[in-house]
């Protein structure tokens, strides 16, 4: 289930892209999920664990992926139990955060209102212990914390 802690959170990784640069593993990049997320968010193709083909920047290393995709990869594969600040992710990452939350227990920190789309979802808000099921409910809870 996706769990969100809203607002300032002690111990959360404030800038996941920097954490990614120093902690990612090669094998994360070549999984089908990683390839799909990178294709969708960064519009880039994974050639190998060390090479990504970006339509804008040309051939790039994983360190030049977007901050949003680096954070998604950490959410998917980091096993150190860290909680990552998802406010470095744009709204185009929201559907992937929801998907990751369906596949595993995922706790993230969010410091702004992310648009999770019009479809229903299920998110546990850790600040209040309540479950929100659509954007309207999410915004109503979030306004006290972001």
């Amino acid at each position, binding site marked *: 289930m996706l769990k969100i802690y809203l607002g300032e959170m002690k111990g959360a990784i*404030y800038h996941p*892209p920097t954490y990614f640069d120093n902690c990612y593993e090669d094998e994360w990049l070549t999984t089908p999920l990683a390839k799909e997320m990178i294709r969708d968010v*960064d519009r880039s193709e994974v050639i190998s664990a060390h090479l990504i083909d970006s339509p804008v920047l040309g051939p790039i290393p994983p360190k030049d992926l977007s901050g949003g995709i680096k954070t998604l990869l950490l959410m998917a594969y980091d096993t150190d139990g860290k909680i990552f600040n998802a*406010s470095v992710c744009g709204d185009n990452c929201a559907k992937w955060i929801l998907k990751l939350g369906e596949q595993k227990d995922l706790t993230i920190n969010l410091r*702004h209102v992310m648009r999770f789309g019009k479809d229903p979802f299920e998110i546990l808000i850790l600040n209040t212990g309540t479950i929100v099921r659509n954007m309207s409910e999410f915004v109503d809870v979030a306004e006290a914390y972001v």
Partner: protein
Amino acid sequence: MKGKKRVIIQNNRVHYEFVIKRNITIIQGDSASGKTTLVNMIRQAENLGESSGINVSCEVPCRVLEGVNWKIILENSRESIFFIDEENYFIKTEEFASAIRGSENYFVLITRENLYNLPYSVEEIYGLHVSGKYRDTRKIYQKMYQIYPKTARLPVRVQKIITEDSNSGYQFFENVCAERNITCESAGGKTKIPEMIGKAGTEETCIIADGAAIGAEMNLLSNKIEEKQNVHLYLPESFEWLILNSDLLQDKEVRKILENPEDYIDSTEFFSWEQYFTKLLIQKTEGTYLQYKKAKLNPSYLQDKNKNKILESIQGIQWKIKSLK
């Protein structure tokens, strides 16, 4: 610093081009839109100059502000545009807000967080997008677009008005609404607006707030009204700007200023534009029958001729015809 600054930053793959015209500009939007690439290019150009292979064209230096020494750098800089990427937590601090108040520099902040310490405009919150490609090359143009376009869901035929404050602006609209049997309420400050939206009924409701300093609230407000389609936001610079813009004063200088306010509003003197417009209106009306005070509305503004002049200049709201007494 004052005036608009055109910025062009390019290498053989990317061409960024945009105009910065206020002391605080925010860049946010989707992931992978080129925000960090922009900052990296500015950093490389600043450090290596021409030998970076990056061309920066701007009448003032474009620089990156980051790291633990940000305050020292800022204290020793003037007439520059500082770009600050989202990893720099200090942009959220009161210390940063104090440091940039009265600064001779402009600041471009890359963040999705709501910076309640800073009075930035709804008009200066941008995203980046690809606007085209160079012919026969892989090079792309990146431009900025306004995240919150000011005409979104406007004009509105109102049944209820909520004003941000309880001063002159509220007093003016309360009178206008009373004549038309429309409800008018004061939110009692911009931080209370989300709560008012939550309580709004089904009537077509327009919230009038100072666009010049409501940037930090926009993430929440835009999401709130997305869920309430009968609630609309009308965000002029400020109530004082509305009066100035209505040409009620028939003042040539005011007209000229409003064409390009950025040429007159010095960041060292005004943290946000609504402070300038208030000062300008007070100055221009001093000693006249329209003498303006923010705390209490001069009744002259409620005379039919003057009131209508202001109302006619408001393009975001369609008013009901006055009720017969």
